């Protein structure tokens, strides 16, 4: 077996992480409030964009899970040396990475529920759009937690990670059309936006919800294939990386 990342030890570690994250109410409530503030901000600047912004907020919130994994993984490795406690045991390095990611996702379910509720209230989506939304969020989750975990292993000073996290968040979450429709972007940037996982995810949901954005079938295929490949490739790479980096060289 190449990888063993979903066994009972992984679930055990998922529950551990969930408890750790939920230990502080701020960790649960702050992301919801931050998304609320960002939505108000977009609404002030351009009320017509609120539906796009809500879909974008869901994608952006999912992308933030990777940043949370990055911070958590670096913090408990550098400061608490916890991998040294868990990894010389039955929990596999892949299970450690996956368990941490699932635990952090679990602690943020509230954010997704609130945003999805507001979206359904302001602009009810079709069943197809909800299905696509769920699928792309899963793909973004795989991509972002993999990126976050990988980046976390590159640093020995967890304080030094934050500036990189800010750049990554802005490059993937603010610059491409996540909070705004693809149509506002100059045409020549369109293909690039469809290749970036976050904007591809938003575009796919908007395309599934007919009328929100007009993308050619080639564009849809490009977005779907890119997102799937990037998510899977990075996830598989990070599973291997988790094993490789578990023992220092």
């Amino acid at each position, binding site marked *: 077996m190449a990888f063993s990342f979903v066994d009972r030890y992984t679930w055990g570690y998922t529950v551990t992480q969930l408890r750790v994250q939920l230990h502080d109410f701020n960790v649960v409530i702050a992301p919801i409030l931050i998304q609320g503030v960002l939505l108000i901000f977009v609404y002030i600047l351009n009320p017509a964009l609120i539906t796009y912004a809500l879909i974008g907020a869901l994608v952006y919130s999912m992308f933030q899970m990777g940043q949370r994994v990055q911070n958590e993984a670096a913090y408990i490795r550098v400061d608490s040396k916890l991998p040294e406690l868990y990894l010389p045991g039955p929990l596999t390095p892949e299970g450690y990475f996956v368990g941490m990611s699932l635990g952090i996702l679990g602690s943020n379910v509230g954010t997704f529920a609130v945003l999805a509720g507001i979206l359904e209230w302001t602009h009810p989506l079709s069943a197809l759009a909800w299905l696509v939304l769920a699928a792309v969020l899963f793909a973004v989750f795989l991509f972002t937690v993999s990126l976050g975990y990988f980046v976390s292993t590159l640093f*020995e*000073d967890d*304080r*030094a990670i934050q500036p990189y996290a800010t750049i990554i968040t802005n490059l993937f979450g603010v610059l491409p059309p996540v909070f705004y429709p693809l149509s506002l972007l100059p045409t020549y940037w369109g293909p690039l936006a469809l290749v970036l996982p976050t904007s591809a995810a938003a575009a796919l949901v908007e395309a599934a919800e007919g009328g929100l954005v007009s993308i050619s079938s080639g564009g849809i295929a490009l977005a779907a294939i890119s997102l799937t490949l990037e998510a899977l490739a990075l996830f598989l790479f990070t599973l291997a990386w988790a094993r490789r980096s578990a023992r220092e060289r």
Partner: protein
Amino acid sequence: MAEDALWARDVQKRYERRGTQPVDALRGVSLSIRPGERVGLLGRNGAGKTTFLRIASTLLWPTSGEVRVFGHDIVNHPEEGRPLIAVVPQDGKPFMHLTPYEQVYTYLRTRGFDRATSKQRTTEVLGQMGLTEVADRLNLALSGGLRQRVMVATVIATEAPLLFLDEPTIGMDPFARREVWECLRRLSKKGSTLLLTTHYLDEAEQLSDRLYIIDRGRVLVEGSPEGLKAQIGGTIRVSLKGGMRLKETLATFGTVATDGLDVHVILGPDRVEEVLQLALREKLSATVGPVSLEEAFLRVVGRSIDDES
């Protein structure tokens, strides 16, 4: 008459956290340290050593009690005492993005030392602490023991009149520990007063003129290392391998402690020969050595545990 470097009376500290039982970390600690003295604070984990040290170094508010640093009331006016103190915190880490040289130098600058003095002291203390070779490496790249040495060097360089050291040599190898001891002795000769907590009893014995043993937030006993050792009924320990069956006979020579089937007798020098002859007659192997501070510590704290229970 000169003021005590540190004087504390009836210091109490109760930690109250919502949803948990209050914890009485200090239950009336009183002590005094004369200028230039080196004093060790010993106790089990959770005995209250760090709590007391943090209160005395103005890091933590006491619940009640008085603490004076060179006569200044640092409970109500900490700013008066702070220029006179420096602290090596427990588990402290240096700035990871600085080198040991920059760490010590910038700390001295932030304490108000001028550039020339800061440079001179930094070079001097890094040399004394065996850090010259790594002076230009990032703290991030140093081992845990070296980082701890950097922390101690940072504080020693201040030459503050009163230094608090919370487990200063934790994680250091025996050579490094000796270098730190030497630096602290040198500083003490220059006039600085030291209060340290440690779990290394050899360190406490080497460095301290006087010791306070505290347990469950109270001072159990105070005295010099020799004085404390004398309190347990003798200065020599004879250990008899497999001497359990002679326990009652051995108890007539001195204080007896057991360790599995082995028996240790603490006694005066005048009765050592008798015990050794007994061991010879019974064909038991025996070793003779001086009583250690650890034995004194275990006896004092053990007695306290027995009394409480």
